[in-house]
């Protein structure tokens, strides 16, 4: 999978690229409008991560260009402005998702994954992690072909873990992923624990391994 990251802040671009490359994405970087335009004309990408405010132009114009060339390319807008106008304008013009700074790398990765699923196979692609199989369309989870019942939060949590497998995922990023960033309650960490506990129990009950490791009260790691 090839990703183009358009972002004028070099340090941020490096972080995103490092994280995503670890997930076996091929990342190309563009730090200004001109570079981005050049790369978009010459190459094809599966996903473009697009910062709206660039020093020499607007990401919105790039968005139009991308969608004119190939409407199937997934575009994820990254913006410092979480103003509704920008968001609506971006989505109206064909952007597939929108994320505001500052964001969690795990969240970015999860968004790109779901974007790719929707784009490639109309969402019907199965997500497989060892004996766990997830059907994103019907939102059904099976372990060794046995259907298990998960609540909406447990399902989202599992999906988030699998998208960021082998990575330390912080509690903060999980809380934001499950409840949205408007919820800023310290309590939310306790609920992660509750939901996570239930999820672990259910997975174990159906015979799968416990893949979740606790990382010093900092977060969790989903790995073999």
């Amino acid at each position, binding site marked *: 999978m090839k990703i183009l990251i358009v972002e004028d802040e070099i340090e941020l671009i490096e972080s995103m690229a490092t994280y995503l490359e670890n997930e076996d994405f091929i990342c190309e970087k563009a730090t200004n409008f001109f570079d981005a335009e050049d790369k978009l004309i010459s190459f094809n990408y599966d996903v473009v991560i697009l910062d709206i405010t660039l020093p020499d132009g607007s990401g919105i114009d790039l968005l139009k260009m991308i969608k004119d060339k190939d409407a199937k390319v997934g575009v994820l807008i990254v913006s410092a402005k*979480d103003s*509704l106008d920008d968001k609506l304008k971006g989505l109206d013009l064909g952007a597939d998702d929108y994320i505001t*700074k500052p964001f969690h790398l795990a969240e970015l990765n999860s968004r790109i994954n779901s974007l790719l699923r929707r784009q490639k196979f109309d969402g019907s692609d199965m997500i497989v992690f060892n004996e766990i199989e997830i059907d994103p369309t019907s939102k059904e989870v099976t372990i060794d072909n046995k259907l298990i019942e998960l609540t909406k939060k447990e399902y989202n949590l599992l999906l988030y873990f699998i998208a960021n497998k082998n*990575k330390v995922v912080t509690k903060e990023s999980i809380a934001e992923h499950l409840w949205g960033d408007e*919820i800023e309650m*310290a*309590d*939310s960490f306790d*609920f992660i624990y509750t939901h996570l506990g239930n999820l672990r129990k259910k997975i174990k009950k159906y015979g799968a391994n416990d893949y979740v490791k606790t990382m010093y009260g*900092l977060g969790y790691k989903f790995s073999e």
Partner: protein
Amino acid sequence: MRLIERTGRSYLILSLVIFMLFGIVLYFILTAVMSNRLDEKLRYNKEVISKRIKYDYPLTIFEEPELLTEAENRFYPKDTVIYKDTLIFHAIEGLEGVENTEEYEKYRQLTAYETFPTGERYKIITRNSLVRNQDFVTIITLLTIFITLLLVAGLWFFNTRTANKIWKPFYNNLNSLKNFSIQEQKPIELQSSNIDEFTELNGSIKSLTEKLSSDYNNLKEFTENASHEMQTPLAIMQSKIELLLQSTNLNESEIKQLQSIYQAGQRLSKLNKTLLTLAKVENRQFSEIEEVNLSELINTKIEIYEDFIEAKKIDIETDIEPEIILETNSTMVDMLVTNLLSNAIRHNIEKGTIFMKLSATHFHISNSGNELSISPENLFNRFKKASSSADSSGLGLAIVKKICEINEWKIDYTFLDEQHQIIVRF
């Protein structure tokens, strides 16, 4: 005291003093002139009498000259003329058609001790009534007083009337100045006047308010811009720490320290986000008006917060009238409900209660909890919080209040029956 009254009063006092002085001076001048005239007449009378004596002309009984006694001769060795005012008893009795009167009347009297060519010395007395003169002076005084009063009243009346007319723009402008609000972003409207001082004042007020507004706007924009500029460095910080956390060769203490940095960063970015939201609300960036189904919105919010409500074993009771539609901005109402509900949960006690009631006129949310440690007036101010807990930015209610202000809703807080009660009236 109003300026009109103050100046009016000064004028009044001044004119009263002037007229009184004028009246007194007039009185003395008139009296002096008249007694001069009178004395002249008395002298003439005396001359007539002495001529008559000289030429042995018959005299009336009133004019009968007296030969001087020895004592008088000694007292007045030379010819002397003495003027004096005297009272003479008048009695009119038994005259037909005339009322009987008995009174003293004031007279001017001339007494002359004169030596005649024959060597005889006589005392000649002649008088004239002062009554007519006195009447004259009285009338003049009265007239003066009357004119004074008339003038003062007229002056007062016209002064007040013209002053009112002149000052009217001033008072109107004073009113608009009182009602001027810097947050409304409306330039102040001043009534013009043809008085130079007022025109100048208006000019100064206009430039002052314009300066104030632009400074205020700059400050507001500064908050928003500063918050924006902070987002990118925060994003870099956060992403670098997240990457660092992935490395496998960290020991526990390093991870602990990283965690602290990470959490502080998280707090900072949350605070920044809330600050930005507040700035945006204040800058009226949520201006799109649409129909918002508040009943639906509240029910959705309760669902979102379900986990939190259940965890604290809070008993939630609602009385939400269905299909309450408000014409307002959906983002703002969303923020309002979110902030109020999350506050009601966060500042609640274990096994507490939340009660919510929505009707067409108001939204009422109350929750059990401990009494505030800060005064309720400060509750809606920025960074005023009852606890120093990290999960509370102290900006939530400031945002709520601002939203209410913009929508012209009334918001009230009371602590009643161990319940924090907040009512928003639409």
